């Protein structure tokens, strides 16, 4: 599903609220009832709000929490419009809510799913209306009770204030009457931003106390009665299958209960699960792991037995010698290039990378006669329900999905392959099953970020203006093996045509070559933006240096002033390059970009528009004589429109920066003899605290009153700022990621 489609899921619920005869969305069914307070339906307003007798407000969070702070931000919006003190609010995670209609399913609690940084944008109005309508019902209840007109009532946090005497009634005394008043169909007026008490102010993340006391429950922490533990020995060969299995040793391990094959998809089929293999079921995680170690499996190496990274890069080069699919052709690139004063050219290599969430994949599934219960760390609970249905045939209205806290999403938990696996094992054995992936499983089996070879050429005129630009990309498209994506649309996952510098360079051509390989690919945080921002922001620097221009001034000249350009990809409908200019000037000034640094020290800049949000980085590095790189200082700035929770916005900018740098510094997934080479953190080395400078400043530059997302915006400009700084410090241009040992060479 594209990110645009996911955002549309959130929009669809607006239509449902108007249509639903059962009053599904706004009233009636107690959504919080999935939790321990099922008995308290009469104290609940709609699906999201419960007011306890002691005045505590329990607010439901309908989205998966993957660390992006959505379970703080959305309840903040409800609490603000409801008019309660944030300190009295407890947030409860809601399960998947779907309702069967005549021929399909619709959302019960609004669209549920996180990805593409849409959690806030898709729910900003919706959640405020949830709070505002609930407040209106409380006012109505107080007014009725005192026989006063509603317009003589107002609220202060937690109380309704009525009439000329200013009589106050606390919410907890009105809730049962308010809950009986039915629904409000039409939208009600919302607060002005200047009146916000909670929103727009830094709030501590919901659940932080549970996290620091070890009480937070992730998918891996699921413990259910009679639960057994399972691991799967998956084919180490891409598209390989078990040829023979000797499980004698495995069955002798104390605690091992069962061993059987798991059938994966055929080589050209969509990935319901990632690989074929052999499941081991046991009475504990360790017994299952030991049982798996004792298996003796011969593998059919499958059709990709000769896949290798060496072949991949060689074949990318060969492809680029030919003509690809021209997917964008503005102006007259050939003529403009031919007439240019200077032609600049470069190739960049972007590797496959692993999602590596710190909580490895896992899922609890219990398949019984006609029912299925899933407990999963997922970004897409609706997809989890579909996956379980596809495995079992059980009607989706009988499949319940509880969403745990997620130990890192990064796009890995968009696919519910681990849900399908756990469901298969429960269906086969009849037991409640917790399926656990080890770190090795997680590194060796993934929907990796696509890899590709980018070839860029630009023509620059005598005045230093970029008059022609082409990006030619040979890559392993993310859409490979997705259902319903024809070959000539595989490029749409890899190139976003309306990205910078389109419409800023008049003659621009994008050309694509799809490279079929066995490595599975999927959405990694900020999908194609990490690759494209790296190559484009590096190339702009190369153009500047080749033509004697300042990298800062050239960017400003290209980006120009504020204006809305069409933007057809996710994050549109418009893109305002002037907002990047603003950020760039800011970070350049903060880091004193224009001051020259001594040899071995340098500053780099980069800026990028990602899914509706704007960010820029200025990074200062030093490189010692032996090639040792030190990141000395980072200045990062984000324009996310209106920052609902500034603490979380800073956090996402910090975290996104570290993610971009970590990936660029040392991360790559390689293939040899049809197998993934890496296996754990010793050969897939995530960045550590010691590599992050203490001089690391993040800034929010506000713009308007609508929020954008923030989960992915902080990544794309980090890596090119780093390599641009390395060039400034050393004259060495990094064109292949990861940087790894290139500076010591």
């Amino acid at each position, binding site marked *: 599903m594209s990110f645009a489609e996911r955002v549309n899921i959130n929009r669809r619920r607006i239509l449902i609220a108007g249509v639903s005869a059962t009053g599904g969305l706004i009233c009636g069914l107690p959504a919080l009832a999935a939790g321990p307070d099922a008995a308290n339906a009469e104290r609940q307003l709609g699906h999201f709000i419960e007011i306890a007798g002691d005045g505590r407000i329990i607010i439901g969070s309908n989205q998966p*929490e*993957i*660390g992006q*702070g959505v379970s703080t931000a959305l309840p903040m919006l409800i609490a603000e419009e409801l008019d309660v003190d944030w300190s009295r609010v407890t947030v409860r995670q809601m399960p998947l809510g779907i309702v069967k209609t005549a021929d399909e399913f619709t959302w019960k609690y609004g669209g549920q799913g996180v990805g593409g940084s849409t959690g806030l944008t898709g729910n900003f109005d919706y959640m405020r209306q949830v709070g505002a309508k609930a407040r209106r019902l409380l006012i109505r209840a107080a007014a009725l009770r005192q026989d006063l007109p509603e317009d003589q009532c107002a609220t202060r946090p937690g109380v309704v204030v009525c009439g000329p005497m200013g009589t106050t009634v606390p919410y907890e005394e009105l809730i049962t009457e308010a809950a009986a008043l039915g629904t409000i169909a039409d939208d009600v007026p919302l607060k002005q931003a200047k009146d916000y008490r909670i929103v727009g102010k*830094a709030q*501590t*993340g919901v*659940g*932080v*106390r549970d*996290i*620091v*006391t*070890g*009480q937070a*429950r*992730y998918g*891996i*922490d699921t*413990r259910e009665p009679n639960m057994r*533990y399972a691991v799967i020995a998956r084919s180490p060969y891409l598209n390989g299958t078990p040829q023979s299995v000797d499980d004698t040793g495995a069955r002798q391990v*104390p*605690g091992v209960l069962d061993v059987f094959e798991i059938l994966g998809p055929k080589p050209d089929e969509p990935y319901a699960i990632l690989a074929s293999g052999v499941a081991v079921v046991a009475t*504990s*995680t*360790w*017994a299952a792991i*030991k049982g798996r170690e004792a298996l003796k499996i011969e593998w059919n190496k499958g059709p990709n037995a000769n896949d290798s990274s060496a072949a991949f890069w060689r074949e990318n080069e060969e492809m680029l010698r030919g003509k690809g699919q021209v997917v964008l052709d503005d102006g007259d690139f050939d003529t403009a290039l031919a007439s240019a004063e200077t032609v600049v050219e470069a190739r960049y290599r972007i590797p496959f990378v692993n999602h*590596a*969430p*710190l*909580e*490895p994949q896992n899922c609890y599934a219990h398949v019984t006669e006609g029912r299925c219960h899933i407990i999963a760390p997922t970004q897409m609970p609706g997809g989890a329900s579909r996956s379980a249905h596809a495995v079992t045939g059980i009607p989706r209205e009988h499949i319940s999905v509880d969403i745990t*806290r997620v*130990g*890192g*999403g990064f796009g890995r938990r968009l696919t519910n392959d681990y849900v399908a696996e756990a469901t298969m094992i429960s269906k086969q054995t009849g037991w409640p099953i917790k399926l656990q992936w*080890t*770190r*090795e499983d997680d590194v060796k089996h993934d929907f990796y970020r696509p890899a590709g070879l980018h070839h860029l050429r630009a023509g620059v005129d005598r005045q230093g203006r970029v008059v022609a630009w082409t990006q030619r990309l040979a890559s392993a498209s993310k859409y490979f093996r997705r259902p319903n994506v024809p070959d000539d649309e595989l490029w749409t996952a890899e190139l976003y045509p309306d990205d910078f510098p389109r419409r800023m360079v008049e003659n621009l051509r994008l050309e694509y070559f799809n490279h079929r390989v066995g490595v599975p690919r999927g959405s990694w945080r900020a999908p194609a933006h990490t690759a494209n921002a790296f190559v484009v922001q590096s190339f702009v620097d190369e153009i500047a240096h080749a033509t004697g221009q300042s990298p800062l001034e050239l960017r400003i000249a290209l980006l120009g002033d504020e204006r809305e350009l069409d933007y057809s990809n996710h994050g549109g409908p418009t893109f305002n390059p002037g907002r990047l200019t603003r950020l760039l000037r800011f970070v350049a000034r903060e880091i004193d970009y224009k001051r020259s640094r001594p040899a071995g020290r340098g500053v780099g800049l980069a800026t990028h528009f990602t899914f509706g949000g704007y960010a820029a980085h200025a990074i200062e590095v030093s490189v010692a004589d032996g090639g040792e790189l030190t990141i000395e200082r980072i200045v990062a700035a984000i324009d996310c429109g209106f920052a609902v929770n500034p603490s979380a916005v800073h*956090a*996402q900018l*910090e*975290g*996104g*920066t*570290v*993610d971009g740098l*970590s990936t660029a510094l040392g991360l790559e997934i390689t293939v040899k003899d049809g197998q993934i080479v890496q296996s*754990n*953190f*010793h050969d897939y080395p*995530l*960045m*550590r*605290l*010691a590599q*992050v400078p*203490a001089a*690391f400043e993040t800034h929010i530059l506000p713009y308007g009153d609508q929020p954008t997302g923030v989960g992915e915006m902080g990544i794309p400009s980090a890596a090119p700022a780093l390599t641009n700084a390395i060039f400034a410090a050393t004259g060495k241009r990094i064109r292949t990621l990861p940087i790894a040992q290139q500076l010591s060479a």
Partner: protein
Amino acid sequence: MSIAFKVNGQTVRFDGLQDTPLLWVLRDELGLTGTKYGCGISQCGACTVHVDGRAQRSCALPVSQIAGRAVVTIEGLAEGDALHPVQQAWIEGDVPQCGYCQAGQIMAAVEFLERYPEPSDDDIDANLSNLCRCGTYPRIRKAVRRAARQQQRSGS
């Protein structure tokens, strides 16, 4: 053969496979799921506990080596409702994002501060090597400094 040891002040006995890592005994047998599994090869530190007061990564530590020892997990760090200053500093600094690594970070930081009550940035860099995939390192660093100051002030 039964292996007996203390967890958060209580004596426990384990009768299972002797090479079971302490991590899995804590999580699967004792239901103490605050200590997390991240890698299984002591690279990430999500499994950090205290064994006889020393920070140890429990994922590759066979329970047979824990006989007679005293283990403290994240669940045993606070004293009732009174959080440890490091836990308090983590809350005040709004440190966690997904939060999965943070129990291990806290256990490592608590023991580190016992050895380095007034740590420099270099001390922190050299000693705190737990992984955080979400990149909360800047806030971890600040929270460690805040906890150090708090502990200095209260003379703990």
